[in-house]
């Protein structure tokens, strides 16, 4: 969290309403998102209790395990869930585009991808565990389960893991997304309560949000009081209808909140980088689908050393790119860098569009721009700069002091003797320059998995599905 966000939180607390910390939306919102609110049985690692899900806010599907300790009912629930989620996910595989790549074969990328929205980070964690508990099952052998169950397990594992990827919107956690756009007047810990956070954003703080009788928790854990006073007696009564209705009361309020939150986010205009990050999501999704179609085994229990290092490097690069893109897309995010002196903005007070450096053949066009700024600039002469106003352009800091900063444009102003029209800002124009740049970083050189050194456990064992995995207890 930055000081800017802290200030917004203070302001929110003082005014009794959340404050914006973004001027554009930084996540993709699908045209037809799948809202998924799962509940689990308390005390168990991944025993599903119920889920409310669907793409139509007026017609949610409610799936319930009326006796959570009954293995058959649990797999029936998993199959039912697959019956809703798999057609949704696979529905995006039919329309694809061919993507040409340098030094590699072209590949097919889905033109749109599924988006499964869960209420909070704990929901993402539960999806991952559900995936883990289903993906090694088999449709044949001693403990057969419906064919769709292991397939759903692989998809849930994929979505759960992709959610950790910075900038991905395939499985957003609603409280996290809201928290990236609004600062409430409560702590980050309390922001994990969807009802409380939404109250801060819409009407102002309300103690009702913490009352489980008014706003049941958004899951996956249920309210212990509900468990003791409603759910346990309903299960003992042996009436599936009673259990179902009890769980409906716990899910319906959150269902409404989820769509309200989607509407709130939809009210913000998408940032410029959102489409390109969604494109990466589409590529990743298509890659996973191809993987499954090729008959690859389910994701391993744990990544091998090389796979883990590669994944970590990818995530670090994604995080860096995500940070830079958000700053370029959103002046309020850029303001954080202006506060720390890594960026500055102001009005152009002087220019020399025809300035050149060097003589003869090595003579180069280096237009000069002088900017008047109130920002505390902490950049040294020679620092290379970029600007959100002219994305392809590169510049270099010449000098800074007394509220005046001189920069020279070094690339992206055209190849002619004079700068291309519009390449050099006019006097009076407001501009922003920053040392943050989204430069391409190569991936680290990692050995092939077969060449994993002994220090890292040696080559990972190839996964061979066995009956033990398939019949792993799920109690």
């Amino acid at each position, binding site marked *: *969290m*930055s*000081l*800017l966000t*802290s*200030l*917004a*939180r*203070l*302001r929110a*607390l*003082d005014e009794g309403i959340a404050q*914006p910390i973004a*001027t554009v939306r930084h996540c993709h919102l699908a045209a037809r998102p799948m809202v998924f609110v799962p509940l689990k*049985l*308390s*005390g*168990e*690692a*991944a*025993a599903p209790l119920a889920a409310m899900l669907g793409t139509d806010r007026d017609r949610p599907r409610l799936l319930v395990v009326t006796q959570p300790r009954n293995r058959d009912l649990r797999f029936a629930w998993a199959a039912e869930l697959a019956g809703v989620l798999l057609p949704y996910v696979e529905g995006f595989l039919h329309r694809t585009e061919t993507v040409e790549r340098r030094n590699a074969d072209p590949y097919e990328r889905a033109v749109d991808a599924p988006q499964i929205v869960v209420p909070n980070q704990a929901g993402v964690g539960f999806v991952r*565990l559900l995936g*883990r*508990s289903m993906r090694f099952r088999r449709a044949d052998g001693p403990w057969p389960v419906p064919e769709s169950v292991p397939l759903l397990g692989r998809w849930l594992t994929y979505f759960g893991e992709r959610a950790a990827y910075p900038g991905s919107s395939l499985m957003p956690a609603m409280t996290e997304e809201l928290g990236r756009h609004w600062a409430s*007047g*409560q*702590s*980050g*810990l*309390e922001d994990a309560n969807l009802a409380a956070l939404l109250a801060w954003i819409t009407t102002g703080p309300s103690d009702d949000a*913490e009352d489980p009788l008014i706003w049941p928790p958004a899951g996956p854990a*249920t309210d*212990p*009081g509900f*468990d*003791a006073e409603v*759910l*346990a007696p309903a299960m003992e009564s042996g009436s599936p209808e009673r259990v179902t209705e009890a769980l409906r009361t716990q899910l319906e309020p959150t269902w409404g909140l989820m769509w309200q939150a989607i509407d709130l986010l939809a009210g913000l205009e998408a940032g410029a980088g959102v489409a390109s990050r969604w494109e990466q999501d589409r590529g990743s999704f298509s890659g996973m689908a191809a993987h499954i179609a090729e008959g690859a085994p389910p994701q391993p*229990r*744990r990544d091998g050393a090389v796979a883990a290092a590669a994944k970590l490097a990818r995530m670090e690069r994604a995080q860096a790119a995500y940070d830079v893109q958000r700053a370029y897309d959103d*002046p*309020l995010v850029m*303001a954080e860098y*202006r*506060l720390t002196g890594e960026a500055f903005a102001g009005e152009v007070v002087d220019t020399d569009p025809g300035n050149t450096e060097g003589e003869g053949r090595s003579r180069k066009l280096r237009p000069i721009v002088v900017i008047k700024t*109130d*920002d*505390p600039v902490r950049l040294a002469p020679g620092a290379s700069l970029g600007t959100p106003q002219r994305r392809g352009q590169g510049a270099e800091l010449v000098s800074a002091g007394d509220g005046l900063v001189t920069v020279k444009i070094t690339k992206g102003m055209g190849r002619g003797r004079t700068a291309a029209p519009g390449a050099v800002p006019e006097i009076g124009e407001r501009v922003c320059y920053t040392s943050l740049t989204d430069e391409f970083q190569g991936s680290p050189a990692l050995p092939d998995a077969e060449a994993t050194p002994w220090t890292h456990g040696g080559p990972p064992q190839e996964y061979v599905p066995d009956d033990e995995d398939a019949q*792993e*207890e*799920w*109690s």
Partner: protein
Amino acid sequence: MSGLKREGDHAHRLEALRGTTPQQPHDARAIAALAANPGCARRALMDGAGVDKDAAARHLGFPAPFGQSPFAITRGNVFEALVKADGCAELLRMLRELLGLTVAEVAYHDVENVGAHLRHAHTRTLIDRAARDGHDAGTLYDHPLLSLEIAGHTAYLEPDVVAFQLGGRFHIVEIKSFAVIDGQADPSAVAAAARQAAVYVLALRTLLEELGHDPLKVSHDVVLVCPENFANRPVASLVDVRRQLAVLRRQLTRMTSLDRLLEELPEDLTFDLRPDEDGRPTRPVAELGDALRRTTARYAPDCLSTCDMCFFCRDEARQEGASDLLGRQVRDELGGVASVTEALGLADGTRDPAEGQEEIARLLRNAERLRGECLA
């Protein structure tokens, strides 16, 4: 002499703070939680005096937001019974694998059989004998009753754990019902278990020391037994609790210096709930609230998951407009500006910075200007 006198006063004062309310015994969870917020004088005093914080919070109209689901309790009990079934047969199998033991048989002592009032003495005798003999046969002690001195009071710890002794070395075994999936468990659950186990390690080490044995005979590696993956089958892992032990020791030393906190309080201050014959508190709520507000709390949002008093203290922080409400991160970022109004005053320039606040004031004013510019 004067030292002894002060100590007596000290105990007397703590008793007066608790008043007629029955003493709330410390369990390992409570002792471990002490380390979570060592700067909170209110908690230190209430715990030191053995005040039932849960009852106090309820009486004040701020019941704590945590409860345990009957499903979780059942699951925990079933799992513990499974691990301990047939004289801990399953546990022994795991210990053999984990510690690389070749012992064919172990002796099993269920300390509970002797009746509650004798359990602590019995535990002492058994542990003393074991430490003295140092024989190579393993022994499991189920339901031992350990004790630890907390702020001049003896707290009895009733672990659901088993102390395992082999070749003169003791291991604390802690049974928890959260799952370990593919070798990984919820980090916060593991951290809580490690903090609790550290309390037992400390208690057992203290016991050995009192008996004249080497306290380091108790291993700092505790054995954590959890269900593996999605089944009920237990799996054991070793957890190093040295760091938790260090925090706990520091905190307990601090607890014994409650004198300083007590000295600042009015003579007649008490947190007494004045329970009637049925144990229902009769003390006027406003009076109890006032008494508690005489002590300084250090509210942080983390309290919401660890302390029974959290909603009371949060309400107090709200009324004071304290920046603590927003979490430690915000508080740290504000560099010691404690109140919301003060910080906002510095930001919009209506308040002049006090000495030492110039830097944070400059940052806040800048931040305010930037927000204004971007949101205009």
